């Protein structure tokens, strides 16, 4: 290979297809891949793969690329160049936006005002499967499981962290709903009203009947 005196360097020859495929596989996989796996995936043999990886390593060497090819115990994997360490910290260690998605906010609100409350109840009120929202809220430590209902469904309540993050001293401090209540004159219990509204949205709405009435 000749040195390029030209300030605009001529493009390097395109790598062979096998090398491109290996590059893509290593990129997609979050775990290291060994020669055997790569050979089976590309329907070739380990020797050929090893040769292609050697070429690939050149393109992904220090200074050439921000993505390095590394050979670990478990096989080959791509890793980011340590040169990007500082920038990664700035990018990924920002305080995580603590905002709740609408589905999470809704689920959390139901738990906060009705606790203890079961998942089927949450689903019935929201009209959408609540599994993923409940899982996220559990993950974030905003709700806890607290025993089971008489039918065996897990019951949820808000956590201490919940109070902290919302700046509340106790559940007594939860804001009054009246201000947002469409029919504040309604006398029945909140739980019953929420379930009724959920049922009405789910079942009684005839298809083809538009919302606007």
């Amino acid at each position: 290979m000749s040195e390029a005196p030209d300030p605009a360097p001529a493009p390097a020859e395109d790598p062979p297809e096998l090398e491109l495929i290996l590059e893509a596989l290593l990129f997609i996989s979050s775990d290291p891949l060994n020669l055997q796996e790569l050979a089976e995936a590309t329907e070739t043999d380990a020797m050929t793969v090893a040769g292609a990886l050697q070429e690939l390593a050149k393109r992904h060497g220090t200074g050439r690329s921000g993505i390095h090819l590394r050979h670990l115990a478990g096989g080959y994997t791509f890793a980011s160049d340590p040169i990007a360490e500082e920038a990664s910290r700035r990018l990924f260690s920002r305080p995580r936006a603590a905002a709740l998605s609408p589905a999470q906010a809704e689920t959390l609100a139901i738990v906060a005002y009705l606790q203890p409350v079961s998942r089927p109840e949450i689903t019935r009120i929201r009209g959408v499967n609540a599994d993923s929202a409940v899982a996220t809220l559990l993950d974030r430590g905003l709700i806890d499981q607290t025993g089971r209902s008489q039918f065996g469904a897990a019951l949820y309540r808000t956590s201490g962290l919940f109070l902290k993050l919302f700046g509340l001293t106790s559940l007594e401090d939860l804001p009054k709903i009246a201000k947002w209540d469409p029919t504040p004159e309604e006398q029945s219990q909140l739980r019953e009203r929420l379930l009724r509204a959920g049922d009405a949205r789910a079942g009684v709405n005839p298809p083809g009947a538009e919302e606007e009435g």
Partner: protein
Amino acid sequence: MSLAAIELDLDVFSGPFDLLLALVLREEIDLLELELADVVLSYLDHLEARGELDLETATEFIVLLAALLELKSRLMLSSDEEQMLDIEPEQALEELLARMLDARRYRGAAEHLIELLSGEQGVRFRCAPLPAHLRRTELEPQEGSLDPTILARSVGQLLRMPPVINLRHIGVVRVTISERIAHLRGLLARGRFSFDEAVRDADRMTVAVTVFALLELYKRGEADWEQNEAFGDISITAREAQGAERIAG
């Protein structure tokens, strides 16, 4: 004219609007001669074969065809009777037209999306967790960083009741096929009854859905009927009972 006679490939229709649109656009089809009940049955058979039939969908389909039927029915009504119709024909027509065109637009958009997706076939993304050292630096969420009013507002939204639906302009009456089938089965228990009796004091939509329920019972082999003259009363007989009579006779 039956649906089979006009050779419609039902597989190409993604919904009733689509089907209606095709029916209306087929120049060689005279809507007035088309047996809508047959269209209904064929379409439902088709849905059933695809394993997508539910009574909800079936009822919705009836409602749509009813709009077409409404237009068709003007043929058979005297002008006196027509005064009783509660919607303007132009209004019904414009409504139907607008909905058919809207459905067609989104079907076009849907095809575009399917094309886009298939154009991206084979494109994969990396989905790996952040390296451990970067994860550790994730900050604890701050105390009081969330606003409790979002909770009250969320509950307030969930308390809203859907509006009572004004059906006047489409003339939709909520009556399901399953309800009418149950009703007819009740009457069939007696062995024989007249259609007029089955729909006494019923509104037009109920009558229409009852006809469909009757067709369904016929298809299932539970009932037979007889109509001696056009527009005459229909006499409905339970299949088994009829069989029994034959044996007896």
